[in-house]
């Protein structure tokens, strides 16, 4: 089914691009415990990528593997949300991005664990366990830093102001989403919005942060129509080895 193939690319590209972004922190975090937590989060996300892109490759049926899809597609073939390709910024911005993503990701995986497609259920049931730990940590960190010092509060508010316009894309539907919802494979994205909004309000309130008034949302990542310039820069790093030395293995 074409819609399911597209959906697997979207899920897998989200975890691939965010996993790569988070891994950029390896060895650079403010404290050792956070470095370890970020590295483990990145590892979970890359593991989930193998499952989603593996299923995408299987549905595609052209003999490609998850690795081929990750390392040999170009920017216009990527289907990740704009949010996950944005630069890390400071630690607070990275954690705010993670929290916004985790909020949606956890809700999406929970819904997918009840999918009509067994392969989707298997991936989601495994990934949601990991996503619960990601969400617990990112929400806790947003609260700790938002309700922290004047400096950390200001940085978290700036991060929220910067990233909130990228929150809405997670809940926007297109023909792929409608087809999948009709087949009972995936939820309509907007059906996840209410519960995500509740969590977002709860956490930002406890973090003493103010949600921006405008609900304007950038779009174009998950459809592949309009990525930011950041994606190409990520790919030059992530795909360099396979591009320079095609077929290289360990």
């Amino acid at each position, binding site marked *: 089914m074409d819609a399911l193939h597209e959906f697997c690319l979207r899920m897998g590209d989200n975890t691939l691009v965010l996993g790569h972004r988070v891994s950029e922190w390896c060895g650079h975090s403010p404290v050792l*415990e*956070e470095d*370890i*937590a970020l590295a*483990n*989060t*990145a*590892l*979970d*996300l*890359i*593991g*989930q990528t*193998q*499952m989603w892109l593996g299923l995408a490759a299987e549905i595609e049926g052209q003999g490609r593997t998850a690795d081929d899809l990750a390392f040999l597609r170009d920017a216009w073939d990527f289907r990740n949300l704009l949010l996950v390709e944005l630069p890390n910024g400071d630690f607070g911005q990275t954690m705010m991005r993670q929290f916004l993503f985790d909020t949606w990701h956890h809700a999406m995986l929970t819904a997918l664990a009840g999918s009509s497609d*067994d392969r989707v*259920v*298997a*991936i989601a*049931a*495994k*990934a949601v*366990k*990991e996503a619960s*730990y990601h969400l*617990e*940590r990112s929400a806790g960190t947003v609260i700790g830093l938002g309700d922290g010092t004047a400096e950390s509060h200001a940085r978290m508010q700036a991060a929220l102001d910067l990233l909130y316009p990228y929150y809405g894309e997670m809940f926007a539907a297109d023909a792929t989403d409608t087809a999948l919802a009709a087949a009972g494979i995936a939820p309509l994205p907007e059906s996840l919005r209410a519960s995500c909004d509740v969590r977002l309000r709860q956490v930002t309130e406890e973090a003493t942060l103010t949600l921006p008034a405008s609900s304007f949302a950038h779009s174009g990542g998950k459809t592949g129509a309009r990525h930011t310039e950041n994606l190409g820069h990520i790919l030059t790093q992530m795909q360099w080895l396979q591009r320079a030395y095609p077929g290289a293995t360990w």
Partner: protein
Amino acid sequence: MVAPRPDPVEIWAWLDAVPDPEIPVISVVDLGIVRDVAWDDGVLTVTITPTYSGCPATSLIATEIESALRAKGIDRLRIDRRIFPPWTTDWLTEKGRARLESYGIAPPRAAGGPERCPRCGGSDLERISQFGSTPCKAQWRCRDCLEPFDYFKCI
């Protein structure tokens, strides 16, 4: 001549001697990674499941299982990976839990945290981080003996 086929019960016992590469005091069976052992038309199929989806030890575990079984003379062998139902710490064996604790890693508990310090048995504990040296562990500290320790977190 048809080679004798070892009984799956015996094969489970062999697998119980294959150490987890990251926590060598417990076996891959203790960890609940081996889900099934079955003969299928003369081919032994061992079904394994990853702990965390990105756990780098998973492929190493498959290799170690394979070489352990080949050393026992099984040469027609297939390792299947299964992700559903997802791995859970409920699958840790009692033997595995006891060994974890004597090794210095507090075993998982439904309550979401360790029962006691694996070093001194103290109960005044605090969580440092929900993430630790491997995907399956969290970092805790004992306020009685002041030592940090690993906790095998519930999933």
